């Protein structure tokens, strides 16, 4: 990954917590699970995330409790390290460097560590199970050398390997074969299921589990059967029994610690509990929400834990009751809606469970709530066409939500729903349902950003029309609420419209019809102008913001065009295969994701300026089609120049395999590291009466001291003395510690009043802050009217000493003469083209005052050497 020095593409929030099976600690109080590059420790009772264990540089691929110390956990990662953590304190204890990609990790009952890693064999990369000796050491970083290969070809899924009965043997399944290897005797048995016939296609092994006491191996199969293998130390006389309840593949199997029960789960989202030895009797825990991926049982057998495909971990108490649900960002098969940010909660809004929209708080990395859009029972069955939420839009204040649901059974069924935000219940309430709003699928919907009460929704459909919907107030005589109705139906030469976009102030609406962009006035619904840049149909449209609001950007599958709406002419265009255009609502910046062959490049630029602020090649593999600028709560400062575009908002984007990625700047990273290094409040200390009495006060004192010393009063605490005295007096004397200990504490508790003067100040400060916040939020809510002068003065102020306009311009010219930045970009052709053509455009504008239909000619000319063309530009900019 080509990285700028100070920005890094990271998983920040919303990563998969169901990637590997979670680990329940010995005392059943914590649940440890992988989450992208970090490890999260949750409390099993409160669902709260207690620690983020950060340190791995790549995806974490395995977690196991340290067999010799149950307060420590091993994690392995694709970065080739195994790390040992103290999860109660969240401290990294040791790093073992294996220097090879690790895909999963296992520990046998004897305490031997096994890894799955790539093994070269016949030049083909295969994965092998490798046994490893972790050298005892006190150093922080340990190099691990030497390993022995146990198995040559294993599945990378940790479910497919299990260690049996005291670590005597290991069972591994892959495709249609079960291998059992006795570690001591070094004997090897292979049991294959039939591979021919129509039944055999589905009976491949999916998972394996070993009975903790008996010699019995349970295997799950693709056709829903569970086989219990016995006598597997014989080549021929082995035997197995079959039980069958699941109708499709068994995803997870797990024996309870005593071996009395076998748990299984699959697509049906039902946890099945089989009695071992009496497999006819079984119990069910149905309606777990979505299909089960993994099952884990706590060491004492009281807690079950299932992880689900919708990035959820369910904690089940006493085999019967769901006691906690830890929900991550739901990664569906594909996000059909655009990514949005809810202005009220600052939550990311996107498709969640089938038929739902999820509101996900990225700051807290937690799902806020799900909104049921379709309001129909979801039937978990393949080949069944169900209603799906395909489009959604939020208006700029977050008071209206528009959704489009679609089902393509035989003919397309569409309905458009409008949801009003209800202040009372703090959620969205269905206001209007419009069934069949269009004859064809809706390709885009958007709200006008106008700040008045009446907002307009525009829906664009493949049936050749776009419709504007408005909230109509009913007669006062009727009791009915206000509802939405169609205000205008527009079309253009019966071409298929593709996308639409409102300008930032809501005064213009651009709708693309194949190659033509039409610009309408939403006030009168007049067609103002058409813009065109053949060849290629417009794929995406976007208005510039703030000072660049006179520009309209359009992306065809080959070109990126920028029109000046004042002159109605093409300002510049460049050959780029843009998959997504996105304007930052708080700055002029526009982000363009360009799909190269397999990877995606990102360019961030201002429409008025021809050179990008920021570009990153090979951002990720696959096309990026969903991204969003999430406004920051407070602008970031201290960034270097190349990452200044991230000051006001953060850019999140979804890769094609549903990973949510974002950019992390250096200052942010430093801040996070600082946060994680802070000793966190330890809630795992035993709750003795002594602790209750002393620990609490001591902590408070420490906090107070912190406040005093740093003078960064977050929140003032009330004087504590009286409470301490009260508690001291009200506690029975026989549980109190000796008086000598209490005495100093008591005295110090009386000495609080020293910092009184500051304490008085602080509340006012807090008030001021809150006022500021309110102002901020108002500004954000009020759909940000374009304030070009304001903004430019802002930037000017940031640049340092105030310059005159002419000086400023000169400086820019000089900057452009400095070609050093080209060197960095020379490697990538599209960018070079961009600059060339951008440079050319002023000339072209002079030549052809009305370029709309004729423009392409200069564009296709072969590029000229750079140095020549830049000269006239200097002339034009420096008259």
């Amino acid at each position, binding site marked *: 990954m080509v990285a700028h020095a100070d920005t890094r593409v990271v998983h920040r929030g919303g990563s998969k917590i169901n990637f590997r099976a979670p680990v329940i600690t010995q005392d059943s109080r914590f649940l440890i699970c992988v989450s992208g590059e970090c490890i999260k420790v949750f409390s099993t009772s409160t669902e709260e995330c207690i620690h983020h264990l950060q340190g791995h540089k790549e995806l974490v691929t395995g977690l196991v409790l340290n067999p010799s110390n149950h307060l420590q956990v091993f994690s392995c990662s694709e970065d080739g390290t195994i790390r040992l953590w103290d999860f109660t304190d969240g401290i990294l204890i040791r790093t073992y460097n294996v220097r090879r990609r690790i895909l999963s990790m296992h520990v046998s009952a004897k305490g031997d560590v096994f890894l799955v890693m790539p093994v070269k064999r016949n030049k083909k990369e295969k994965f092998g199970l490798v046994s490893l000796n972790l050298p005892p050491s006190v150093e922080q970083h340990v190099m691990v050398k030497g390993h022995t290969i146990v198995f040559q070809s294993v599945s990378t899924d940790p479910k497919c390997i299990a260690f049996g009965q005291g670590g005597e043997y290991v069972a591994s399944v892959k495709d249609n074969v079960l291998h059992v290897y006795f570690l001591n005797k070094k004997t090897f048995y292979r049991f294959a299921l039939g591979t021919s016939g129509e039944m055999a296609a589905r009976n491949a092994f999916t998972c394996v589990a070993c009975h903790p006491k008996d*010699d019995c191996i349970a295997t799950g199969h693709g056709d829903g059967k569970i086989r219990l293998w016995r006598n597997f130390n014989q080549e021929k006389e082995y035997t197995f*029994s079959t039980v069958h309840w699941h109708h499709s593949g068994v995803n997870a199997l797990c024996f309870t610690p005593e071996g009395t029960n076998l748990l299984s789960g699959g697509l049906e989202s039902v946890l099945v509990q089989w009695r071992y030895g009496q497999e*006819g009797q079984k119990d069910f825990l149905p309606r777990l929400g979505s299909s089960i991926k993994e099952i884990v049982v706590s060491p004492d057998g009281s807690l079950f834990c299932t992880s689900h495909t919708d990035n959820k971990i369910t904690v089940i108490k006493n085999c019967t009751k769901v006691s906690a649900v830890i929900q991550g960002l739901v990664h569906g098969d594909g996000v059909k809606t655009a990514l949005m940010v809810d202005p009220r909660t600052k939550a990311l809004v996107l498709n969640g469970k089938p038929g739902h929209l999820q509101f996900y708080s990225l700051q807290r990395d937690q799902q806020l709530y799900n909104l049921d859009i379709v309001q129909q029972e979801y039937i978990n069955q393949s080949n069944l066409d169900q209603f799906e939420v395909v489009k959604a839009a939020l208006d700029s204040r977050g008071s209206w939500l528009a959704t489009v649901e679609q089902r393509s059974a035989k003919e397309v069924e569409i309905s458009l729903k409008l949801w009003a935000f209800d202040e009372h219940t703090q959620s969205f309430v269905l206001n209007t349902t419009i069934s069949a709003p269009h004859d064809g699928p809706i390709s885009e919907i958007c709200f006008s950003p106008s700040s008045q009460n009446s907002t307009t929704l525009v829906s664009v459909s493949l049936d050749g029309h776009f419709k504007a919907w408005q909230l109509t107030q009913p007669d006062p005589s009727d009791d009915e609420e206000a509802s939405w109705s169609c205000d205008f139906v527009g079309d253009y030469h019966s071409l298929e419209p593709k996308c639409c976009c409102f300008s930032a102030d809501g005064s213009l609406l651009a709708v693309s019809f194949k190659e033509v962009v039409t610009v309408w006035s939403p006030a009168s619904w007049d067609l103002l102008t058409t813009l065109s840049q053949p060849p290629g149909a417009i794929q995406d449209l976007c208005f510039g913001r703030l000072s660049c609001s006179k520009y309209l950007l359009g992306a065809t599958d080959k070109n990126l065009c920028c029109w000046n709406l004042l002159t109605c002419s093409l300002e510049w265009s460049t050959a780029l295969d843009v998959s997504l255009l996105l304007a930052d609502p708080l700055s002029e910046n526009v982000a363009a994701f360009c799909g190269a062959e397999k990877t995606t490049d990102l360019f961030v630029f201002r429409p008025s300026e021809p050179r990008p602020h920021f570009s990153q090649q090979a951002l990720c593999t696959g096309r990026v089609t969903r991204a969003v600028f999430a406004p920051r709560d407070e602008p970031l400062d201290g960034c270097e120049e190349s990452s200044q575009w991230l000051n006001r908002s953060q850019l999140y984007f979804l890769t094609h395999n549903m990973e949510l990625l974002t950019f992390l700047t250096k200052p942010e990273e430093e801040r996070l590291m600082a946060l994680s290094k802070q000793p966190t409040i330890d809630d795992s200390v035993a709750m003795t009466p002594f602790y209750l009495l002393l620990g609490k006060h001591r902590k408070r004192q420490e906090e107070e001291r912190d406040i005093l010393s740093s003078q960064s009063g977050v929140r003032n605490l009330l004087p504590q003395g009286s409470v301490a005295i009260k508690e001291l007096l009200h506690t029975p004397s026989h549980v109190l510690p000796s008086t000598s200990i209490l005495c100093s504490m008591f005295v110090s508790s009386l000495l609080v009043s020293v910092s009184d003067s500051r304490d008085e100040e602080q509340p006012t400060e807090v008030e001021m802050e809150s006022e500021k916040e309110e102002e901020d939020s108002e500004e954000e809510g009020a759909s940000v009217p374009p304030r070009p002068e304001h903004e430019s003065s802002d930037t000017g102020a940031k640049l340092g000493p105030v310059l005159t306009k002419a000086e400023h311009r000169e400086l820019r010219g000089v900057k452009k003469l400095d070609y050093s930045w080209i060197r960095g970009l020379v490697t990538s052709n599209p960018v070079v083209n961009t600059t060339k053509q951008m440079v050319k455009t002023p000339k072209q504008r002079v030549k052809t005052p009305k370029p709309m239909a004729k423009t392409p000619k200069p564009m296709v000319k072969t590029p000229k050497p750079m140095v020549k063309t830049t000269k006239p530009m200097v002339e034009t900019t420096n008259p």
Partner: protein
Amino acid sequence: MGEFKVHRVRFFDYMPSAISAMAFNVHTERLAVARADGTVEIYNFADNCFQEKVIPGKDGRTVEALCWAGQRLFSTGLNGEIVEYDLENLRSKYTVEAYGGPVWTISSNSQGTQLAVGCEDGTVKIFELVEDSIQFQSNFDRLKSRVLSLSWHPSGTQIAAGTMDMIRVFNVTTGHATQRMMVDRAAGANKKKEVAVWSVVFLSDNTVISGDSAGKVQVWDSQMGTLIRTHLVTKWDVMALAVSRDESSLLAGTSEGSVVQFQFISARLDQPDKEWQRTRTLRSHSHDVRALVHTDTAAVSGGNDAHLVVRPFMEKVVKGSKESAPCKITFPHRSLVSCGKKAGILLFQFPERLEVWRLGETHCVYACSLQGDDHICCSTLSPCGGWLAYASASSVRLFQLQYDNDSIALTKVKLPKVLRWANQLCFSADSSRLFASFSQSSVLVFALSKSEAKYVHTLKPKSGETTAVHLMSTSDDGQWLATANSDCEVHVYNLKKLKYHCTVPVYGSCPSAMAIHPTGSNVVMVHADQKYSLEQKEYTEWSRSLAKKGLHGSWLNRVAPVTHVSFSASNPDYIILHDMNMFCIIDKSLPLPEKDSDLCNQNQLRSMNEAARVKDSHAFKICEMFKNLLCVGLMEDHSLVVVERPLLDIATRLPAPVRQKKFAT
């Protein structure tokens, strides 16, 4: 071979009767199967599960239990009698009244000296086996309810008896009960219903295993009288249990039609203490499994859906061998249909009646039902369609058929008194003679004239004691008669001289079909293990080359035996034969199929391209278009009659099963 006009006959509504009991003789590898109509069939497991003998049943005789004592076969039923069968002449030898009401079960000790029967009145009676008879010996302590199941301890000193709600263990010498083990009733609504212990098994380590009507398989310690382990197998009944000879595997048949296997294995590897673990579930029946046998290599099950299913255990057999193929026997291995070649009429044989149908008509032309209790054991129609004969255990009847336009009138023709019963009947090709096989492979010859039959001669084989004839065939020119019996002997008689001609060298497998070549005076025999030989005092060239080359592997691996052989009238080189699943025409002039090539059927050949078709074509022209064949006959006018009995039709006429397999339950 060209094309045929095919009469596809599906109106023969033959219903196989439910299997009620089975017994396996380990030493001779013979399986005795009793059906609900009283028929007892003997299958030879050493010879590809061929149905060697059929003893026809009798009205009012039901068979509840079967047992072998040495070479002798006994059965009991709800009429309260113990029957011993004459396996040579295929009839019941004698019956003994048990005087205890209906008899539910019979069991012999492993030494073969004593029989124990369990009666409705709660008594267990011991009979002693004496030469040619059995003799009552003693009564055990009388129980309160009927004795449903019995099992001897291998030492012969103890008997476990399953009754209602209880299992009792008896000491054989004293006749007193030594243990009493109460069986739990089913939970819930069936709490008041008493539990029937349908089956018990007494193992040599003094373990008793029981299967009951509450769906449990329970393991008991008979010395302590305590329950060791309960396996709940089904919600309905466990009807039958069977244990392997080494007592390491147990089968339980349920009313759901599944057979559950239990194995005696240790929970921890390398540790000696073993327990009974449920392992496999075999589902091969749609209805109750009433009878089970655990042979060394296979599970044999039969039940109300009338199929006899042999499921081999894969770990006990060599993969790909003939034994490893599962086998389902539905139809008897002998012809129930006879064709009147010239007249175009068909005769269908049912246990209690006969039906005559004329081709091209949609209704039965004539149906005659049997007088007397005994069931029909064989029937035949003369090639001209003018004569009809059938035999039961007590009588042989001959009829002359007269055709009016639509209907057929039968007139009875008196047979000489010599013939009291017959195993097999056969008309000569010109319908002038009737051959009836009698005891010890002898054949009686009758001359038929207009209205009477005259005894002519008795043909006897040279070798002395032999078993009953099950196949008979005459040549078209009327010169030869061949008979085959279950000792695998084939005798040929010269009819012109009315004397014994020769015996075909004995081959190890029983012939399942036989015919004499119309012109070449050769005998074609198809053996149960799918081999062939031709004979005219010595094997012909073709059969020698066949014997030398061996038959194709996939032909040998066919499960169903060939049940009929005939010849094409137009081209004597063609041999037509069929089994349950296909019919085949063998062209002797074409090369035999190569060992390593695929044995293609005609459909596969048709789909190939020209070159491959020429390359792959061989003497065996197999047609698998018709399924569940009972008969394929070639008529005089070159049309083919195919009598099918679709299994689905049989299944729909069975009563509803207790439970249908539902999705994901």
